[in-house]
């Protein structure tokens, strides 16, 4: 049970003290999961996260405290600790909230009906089907691991300026990981799900996921070492969006730009990428992992234009950074749990389609690398240097995909690479739903997407010298 509005009012009144703004974030998140290993259901897990975080803002300073004890005594003490940071005269105004929290329109892919929780038998069935399909897909498949999880997060957000909102967020995930034995042992991963109920796996079936993981493992089991050097690189549609997320997205988060620590600080209106590059971040795409009816500060999810035809259009903001930069939140305030303050974060970051066909893009490359999908990436914000690891990739020779490659990483500098986008495909799509973004030790689900894109010069780190 979450606190009633009167308790929220008392807690916020205590918290505001001498501050400019205070908010309370109540969360109750229940995650159920099962994991399969060696053809058997290996373990079951339940995770329950329940508590309230209280934040007080005073100028550029933020105080924070949280409590898993929801008693009035504990919450008032938590509010007192949070407000220690505020300077100046204590305020005497009393908060007033509506009698019921507002519930915004849902952007989630489920019916919003909490009455029917999935049974253990349903989870186990999904995993067993994935296991059978992966082993049947190819005789080279050696091991199969699979996991399924289903989460419901209920939040209530109350603020000292009278905002009082609730949201109920579903999130499911099914992931399959295979190894296959060829000339080397290859690994393959495939995952999907989103902000839906388990019914999403009626259309995105465990069999499809399992065959995809097995296929990638088999490709990688005959992959050769990647040559090192500078190459033309084609990034495949869908999961290639990890590139936008790392190389550009993080640098456009409001906190880095308010503090002047991002290389994109103070550059709205300037050219930051090839004119072929447009990047959106969207919190409203139905059922995507990064979608939010409201963010963790109660601001509705939005469609944001980050870069348009190569021109920087705007940043992603939470309330604190927006206020200090004289603008408004873009619905980007997100947090891992009630134990941490919100940060400006991405939701679903993607590039819309261009004009070229994927075929003509591949044909245009004499010798290069085709990066079908990435296993992950990382960026350094102040200078923009990034690295991505290939999950699946191929050598391109004379306009054709030839040998599969393993052990490759792509590295470079975000703005430099974005200026080297020379072709953009007409095949934009979102990646399958399994990405999670880490920032400052906080992990949140996100979405990425992209059309096929050609980059004219990227450093590829392989283990063989020369190309």
């Amino acid at each position, binding site marked *: 049970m979450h606190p009633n509005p009167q308790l929220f009012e008392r807690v916020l009144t205590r918290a505001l003290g001498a501050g400019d703004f205070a908010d309370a974030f109540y969360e*109750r998140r229940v995650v159920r999961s099962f994991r399969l*290993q060696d053809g058997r*259901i*290996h*373990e*079951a*897990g*339940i*995770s*329950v*996260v*329940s*508590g309230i975080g209280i934040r007080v803002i005073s100028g*550029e*300073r*933020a*105080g*924070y*405290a949280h*409590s*898993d*004890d929801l008693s009035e005594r504990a919450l008032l003490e938590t509010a007192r600790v949070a407000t*220690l*940071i505020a300077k100046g005269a204590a305020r005497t105004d009393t908060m007033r909230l509506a009698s019921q929290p507002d519930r915004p329109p849902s952007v989630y892919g489920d019916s919003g009906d909490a009455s029917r929780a999935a049974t*253990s*038998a349903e*989870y186990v069935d999904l995993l067993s089907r994935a296991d059978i399909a992966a082993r049947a897909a190819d005789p080279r498949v*050696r*091991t199969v691991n699979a996991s399924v999880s289903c989460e419901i997060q209920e939040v209530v957000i109350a603020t000292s300026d009278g905002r009082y909102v609730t949201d109920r967020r579903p999130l499911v995930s099914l992931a399959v990981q295979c190894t296959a034995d060829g000339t*080397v*042992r*290859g*690994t393959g991963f495939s995952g999907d799900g989103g902000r839906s109920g388990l019914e999403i796996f009626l259309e995105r079936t465990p069999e499809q996921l399992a065959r995809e993981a097995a296929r990638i493992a088999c490709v990688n089991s005959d992959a050769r070492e990647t040559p*090192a*050097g500078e190459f033309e690189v084609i990034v495949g549609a869908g999961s290639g969006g990890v590139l936008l997320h790392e190389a550009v997205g993080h640098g456009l988060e409001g906190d880095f730009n308010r*503090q002047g*620590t*991002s*290389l994109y600080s103070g550059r709205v209106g300037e050219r930051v990428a090839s004119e072929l590059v447009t990047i959106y971040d969207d919190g409203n795409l139905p059922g995507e992992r990064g979608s939010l009816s409201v963010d963790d500060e109660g601001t509705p999810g939005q469609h944001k234009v980050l870069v348009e035809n190569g021109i920087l259009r705007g940043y992603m903001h939470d309330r604190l950074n927006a206020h200090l930069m004289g603008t408004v939140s873009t619905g980007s305030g997100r947090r891992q749990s009630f*134990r941490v*303050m919100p940060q400006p974060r991405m939701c679903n970051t993607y590039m819309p389609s261009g004009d070229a066909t994927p075929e003509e893009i591949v044909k245009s490359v004499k010798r290069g690398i085709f990066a079908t999908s990435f296993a992950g990436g*990382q*960026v*350094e914000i*102040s*200078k923009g*240097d*990034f*690295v991505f*690891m290939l999950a699946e990739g191929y050598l391109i020779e004379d306009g054709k995909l030839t040998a599969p490659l*393993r*052990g490759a*990483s792509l*590295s*470079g500098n975000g703005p430099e690479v974005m200026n080297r986008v020379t072709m953009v495909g007409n095949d934009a799509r979102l990646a399958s739903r399994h990405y999670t973004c880490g920032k400052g030790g906080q992990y949140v689900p996100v979405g990425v997407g992209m059309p096929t894109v050609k980059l004219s010069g990227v450093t*590829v*780190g*392989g*283990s063989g*010298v020369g190309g």
Partner: protein
Amino acid sequence: MEAELEIARDVVGLAKRAGAQEAEATFVVARRFSTEARGREIAKLEQSVGRSLTLRVFVARAKASLATTDFSREALESFVREAVDAARFVHGDEFGGLPELPQTLRSDAGLGMYAEDVASRTPEAKIGDALELESIARATSPRIVNSGGSRVFDASITLALANSNDFAHAYRASSATIWSSPIAQDGAAKLTGHYGSASRSYATLEAVGAVASKAAHRALGLIGARKPATMRCPVIFDRDVASSVLGDIFSAVSAANVALGNSFLLEKVGERIGSEFATIVDDGTLPHALGTSPFDAEGVPTGRTPVLERGVLRSFLYDTYYGRKLGAASTGNASGGGIGPNNFYLEAGRRTPEELVAATPRGVFVTETIGFATESVTGTYSRGARGYYIENGEIAYPIDEFTIAGNFLEMLAGIDAVASDLVFDQSIVSPTFRVAEMTVG
């Protein structure tokens, strides 16, 4: 600590009454403080006490787990019942179940895990440290123009572990960290340097001034970096980067990965895989080290396990389940439902990092890497990197935007010098070391 133990025992009782044959509960109370300074101001101040409970239950040797922060009686009883019911959908596993534990436990008196000063030092003093880190870092050079913040954070925890075989023990532990991330301007580019110090006590941290100054010099040292040519050459791994390399080696010796075939060290126990400089140990008994504890997450006493001795692979690291599965005893490495390090480290050598550089005619000194992909099966290693080019035994100029690549087996075999700068400030640590030849480009 009796109150915390009572809660752990109580939850074990709940699980037994719900039908679990075996149960193990861990209750942790953590008191945390964190502050961040930017410029002359405190930007953030966070203080909290958090409770968390984890429970493992076994029904016919099938396992389910519960992790919760909801301590209302009704919720606790309901979720414990649900975990026991979920275990009935899990396959019974002959290797599952609680460990056989010794009757007596070694005292944690000499382990130096808890320092009073972490909880007793005043918030004002900690805030003062953060502001001082920030001001010293910024005053180091006019080229330090900004910062990603200077942080002081700490935790004091009480951990109580009880199981249905009448094990019930608790310990206290503390940690304190100071950290600074100044930014230097290099033309249009911003360069961030990071440096920090962590310990069980505020009293044993590096001095605030030294931390701030090292962080600033890391940022300043990157000014004017060039991109190196592609080449094969010796690579020196600074101790922070070396620690991350040890992290990948830890994954490869974790019995969970070995059992899944997910390790480049499969079937190599007893073989010489590293050079004579490659001695790697996991030890949970080192006084004052941050990875030290009297027992692991299952109550198994920690000990000292030689993993690599002068290049010869001696042992993987096990919890109870994977020990039984692979025919070995637990090495006391159970952690958070999986296998984790105690103090996992590369044994130090005698020379300073500067002497290693001086003994390298031409090579690369790596101070930062980004990226984390390791092909755990093949042992392929590839990272984006920054650092310095070494010419005639001297640091010649900074370099960045390059990758270093190789294979862990080649790297272990290629370690030809290890420095003396080993510090136990994380669970996985390494001194600076040199690999004779890798691909840089």
